[in-house]
């Protein structure tokens, strides 16, 4: 699982430093979707993190008010 998380994190970082720079900041949330995903992949198991990330990105559209939405804490 750790390997998958590491892979996901490096993919997200690559995304931030390539695609993320071509397009201007456009996230309706704080923290931004990619930072949220990073946080989630650091603290949760892969499939849960996947779920949180997808849910967040789908919400990040013009029909959602957006706002402050921190990454969920791990329930241990």
């Amino acid at each position, binding site marked *: 699982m750790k390997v998958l998380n590491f892979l996901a994190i490096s993919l997200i970082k690559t995304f931030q430093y390539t*695609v993320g*720079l071509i397009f201007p900041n*456009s996230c309706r*949330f*704080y923290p931004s*979707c990619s930072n949220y995903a990073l946080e989630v992949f650091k603290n949760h198991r892969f499939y849960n993190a996947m779920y949180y990330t997808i849910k967040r990105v*789908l919400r990040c559209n013009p*029909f959602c008010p*957006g706002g402050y939405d921190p990454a969920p804490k791990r329930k241990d």
Partner: protein
Amino acid sequence: MDRKSILGFVLIFIIIITLPFYYRLISHQTQSESDTTIATKSLATSKLANPITPFPEPEATAPNSSLGEPVATDIVVESELFKITLSTKGGGTVKRVLLKKYSKTIGNDSALVELAPASAGYPLLIKYIDIKGDSVKLDHNFAFSALSHPTKNAYVLNSDDSLTLIFTLSDRSQTLAKRSLTFYGNSYLVDQQIDLSGLRSQMASDQFDLTWEGGLAYTEPLIKDDMLYSKAHAYSGGEVEGLDVKAGKTSQSRFPGATNWTALRTKYFTVAFLPTQPALGYSLIGATKPLSGRDFQKVFNMYLTLPASKASTTRIYFGPLDYKTLKSLNVDLENIMNFGFSLIRPISKFFLWSFIELHRLIPNYGWVLIIFSILIKIFLTPLTNISTRSMKEMQKIQPQIIALREKYPNDPQKINAETMRLYREHGVNPMGGCLPILLQLPILWALFIIFRTTIELRQAAFIFWIRDLSAPDTIFTLPFSIPLYGNQVNVLPVLMVISQIIQQKISGATTNQQQKLTMWMMTIFFFFLFNQFPSGLNLYYTLFNILAILQQKYFPPKPKPQKPRKNTKEILRQLQQRSRRRY
């Protein structure tokens, strides 16, 4: 940006610059290693029908070397599309295939695209295993005649003409082998009928191989592109097998079952064997030949196993990888074209289709690109700019945001968080969201694929110095090569980077110093990376940036008066109050 990240960037840069030298250092060792593996492999497989040696070699010629005509003659068949030189050796093997609609370099009609490499000799032959177990290549000189035409050495076909040439190899008493080739004036297809019934008593099994040995010639000035896209393919059981080969290595793929076709391709052209009935199997073999520098020629051999018991018909396609033409063959040969992975494929196909349709109206692909980028921009604008911004509300909270900045001058995170909270409370948000951006990515990716690989853009000129949209728009070449950048100085990448910097400035996306520095670093990196990309892609990218600048300057997202969202509880409360009043 702090010291550590600067150090990191510098290190990455040094690695990128020095990597090629490192590869050159280690490549000598690996090459000698792989040479020995080839030798051992070919020893091990030399008894097989298709030994792994990639280059045609002298083989045991049988049935009887005194067979056939004494002298080989050449026959030239020419139409509007091609000029094919055949030899009576091997019963109509191909010596040269020139495609008349495509020239090697821009504006030079004398150097046409040639598919069969000169080094290949006679690539198109018939091979079988004889009763002694030896592999036999039919490279005798056949006798030839033309069906309902006089026997000549050169034929010119009009667009609706067809020509059938018949090659026969006979013993004193009987016909051993017979191959007929039918050419059509308006098609890249050649119909081929092979009848080996006279040789069956000498064959170990009821099958023979139709071969193409020696690979395809590279056609593009940018050898790296041809190197990247050259592959061998086979289609069986609804799946396309793709065989590639790395420098100094060999590779192979075999399948002893129903095969729909086999094909070799370069970046833009292909030669394919298309049997009318599924063939008995195939074998693909890849090897490489070093060219100058780190370039190499990929040499693929393909063998299609056909039944010898009955006369078999196999069409041969010599021509461009042009989607419409391949699709019209109705054998799924278009599957060897690059359209990206399955999710992107429909998008890139749609783009290609709209490119071709637009090109009918505007006969210059540069202008087509411009119109296309405007259309894409119009199409994407509602995605990115559905703004729920209400001007009044924004003005109302503006002083609060300023107050926040004064309150936490050293804590940008806190400012951001609080600003977002404010936006939410007031039901406004100036951002478009991440989902619309992510939806754009497949579109850009599909465009990238189209620009790089479709033959329609090959040598398509635009204006001024842009003479080929599928290649970099070089204005002069440096005497030395810069890693990643190459040795060509191109104009469009410079324009692209300038437009990107302006666009970033105007959009004001970056606020803090660290982000700004990173952005500069990335922009420079892109400049290096994009330098060798097709000028069409750089043109599109520049246009897209310019359009974004114009849009931000002259068409800012219109304020849409919208009431702040009330939460459901409040609405419920109001409804309850109303109902109380009523009763």
